[in-house]
């Protein structure tokens, strides 16, 4: 089973890399057959990641949601599940080629840094609502991830239109209005989900204080989660009120989320994210 898990993981990463390469080829040449192949590679990668999730669950009898490799795999898988319906319509298919490379980057990062934890037994999430807390957090993160990618495409398209480089690549990007609507709808779904799961986490900490360190509330993971909630609260409400729209909103989401993700990956890969951070350091 261990070998099967390793192979499944590596092939999934490879498929995402292939999708990223084909995305580049499509953006250069605009051939629909290449776009279709990109789509197939992404779907293939996601199927394998789902298979990996099932295999890890079956091997250890625990939901694999706690190790770095599992969290990133689920993040990529969920982000892919968000992306695929988004790029279903004819005039937005080219968007996939902007989504696939960052997904591949994340997959490669996981392949290099997170692979070591592929043999680690996942922690037991014995309380139902802890599992309910972790799963939706990852889904909310996936929505934010895709929102930041959509924001990036918005910036690219707005820049092209401003500088009249609309024919810079053969691939036609969706209209700004559609990108803005997609970006907002991703935040609109992700933000409340994230807030609810955050509150659920706080409720869990209140109910089971014995499972946490006394300083849990100021552990990097919690601070990062609160900062993420603040960022998307600002994005959501300012867009809802019409104060922030278009390129500025896209910049806030892209820069904000990239910083959050970079910090998260840094904390994850160095093992500093957990509740015992402060007590361990003191």
């Amino acid at each position, binding site marked *: 089973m261990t070998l099967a898990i390793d192979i499944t993981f590596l092939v999934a990463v490879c498929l995402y890399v292939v999708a990223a390469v084909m995305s580049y080829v499509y953006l250069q040449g605009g051939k629909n057959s290449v776009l279709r192949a990109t789509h197939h590679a992404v779907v293939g990668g996601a199927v394998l990641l789902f298979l990996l999730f099932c295999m890890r669950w079956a091997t250890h009898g625990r939901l694999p949601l706690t190790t770095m490799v599992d969290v990133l795999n689920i993040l990529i898988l969920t982000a892919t599940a968000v992306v695929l319906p988004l790029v279903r319509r004819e005039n937005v298919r080219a968007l996939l080629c902007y989504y696939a490379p960052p997904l591949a980057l994340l997959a490669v990062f996981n392949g290099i840094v997170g692979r070591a934890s592929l043999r680690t037994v996942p922690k037991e999430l014995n309380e139902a609502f802890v599992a309910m807390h972790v799963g939706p957090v990852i889904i909310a993160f996936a929505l934010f991830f895709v929102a930041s990618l959509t924001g990036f495409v918005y910036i690219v398209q707005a820049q092209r239109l401003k500088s*009249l480089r609309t*024919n810079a690549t053969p691939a036609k990007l969706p209209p*700004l*209005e559609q990108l803005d609507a997609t970006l907002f709808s991703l935040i609109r779904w992700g933000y409340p989900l994230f807030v609810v799961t955050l509150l659920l986490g706080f409720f869990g900490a209140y109910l089971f204080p014995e499972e946490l360190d006394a300083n849990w509330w100021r552990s990097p993971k919690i601070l990062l989660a609160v900062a993420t909630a603040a960022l998307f609260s600002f994005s959501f409400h300012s867009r809802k009120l019409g104060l922030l729209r278009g390129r500025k909103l896209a910049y806030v989401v892209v820069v904000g989320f990239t910083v959050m993700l970079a910090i998260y990956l840094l904390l994850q890969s160095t093992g500093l994210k957990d509740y015992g951070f402060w007590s361990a350091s003191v």
Partner: protein
Amino acid sequence: MNLVVTGVSHHTSTLELRERLHFPESALPAALMKLKTALDGGGVVLLSTCNRVEIYACTNAPVHIAQDILRRFIGEWHGIPEQDYRDSLYQYEGREAVGHLFRVTGSLDSLVVGEAQILGQVHDAYLVAQSEQCTDKVISALFQRAFAIAKDIRSQTNIGAGTVSIGSVAVDLAVSIFSDLAGKTAMIIGSGKMGATTLRSIVSRGVDNVLLVNRNHDRAIELAGRVRGEAIPFDQLEANLPRADIVISSTAAPSHLLGPAHFQRALRRRSNEPFFVVDIAVPRNIDPAVKRMDNVYLYDIDDLQTVANANMEARRQEIDLCMQRVENGVEQFWAWLQGLAAEPTIMSIAAGIHQLREREVQKLLAQLPELGEHDEQARELIAASFKRFANAVLHQPTVQLKREVAHQDPHTVLHLVKRLFGLKESP
């Protein structure tokens, strides 16, 4: 069998002359019938668009007679003296006629190279001829081949990529900003001709609310009546600016009518929803500083012209590639057409061989009395075997003869083959 084409186009004639020579759609059936009668059969297609009037014919008449008939027909039908159009007329025959049709259908001969309309127009002209039973085997094959090449050119090259008129470029930019122009509001400031043309292009894509602003309010009301829009007094321009998603300005004002402060206030009132602004006026009506604002996409006449020119240049760069496809198409069609000349000879040879086969089968069966009348299966096997043998013998000479006729002098080749097989020369 001769292929000829006679006509005038935007390359050789004025619009006024083309208007005089134009065949309205309703007149096409009668004109086709008259042409068919004049040419004494064969196939004929009449193409009449705003940029060209052309007659394609396939006839047994000698080329110079056919061309003479077509030339005179154009004048006689419209009651125009020949000297009025003779110098504008072009006439092609044979391969040149085939190449001309392929270039026309592929939009390589169009006023705006790469425009898509011509393919539909040629197709319609062909369908009219077909419905009037004015097409024959050659004309049908010629036009089918032309459509296939045109589709190949459109799908495999970038000849139709990008838009090349100011109005279309503006529409392209607008649809890169808004998902759907339906339900959007367009404001036109001034009554310049270019502005009206751009507005028409945008309205044709579904914009249903039009606001017209003019210093002369009566003129605005008059224009509003024409496009079912709403006339806005000039001093209400800023107050109504937030209502517009698309702004087209083409006044003769000597200074800027709108600047960053106007758009800033308007954006605040419309929750920062984007503006698409086209300033076609010279001098410009909108302060260029607006271009740097977020959520305002401002383009002046130079911007639109730059995009149109770049797209046209990109199309021109594709012409050589398209011409290569046309040349290949002409080559293939011509080979097929020349091969047709060999068909009667091939049929005669085949008939002779099959007669011989039949005779030999009968002889053989007569020599095999042990095959009783009831042994039908054995008889059929023998006959089928002889037939397969005859077809196999005929296959290679048939293919080779068609090829030789296509590439050598058909008369010499056919004469030699007929002598070889002892066939009678056709009169």
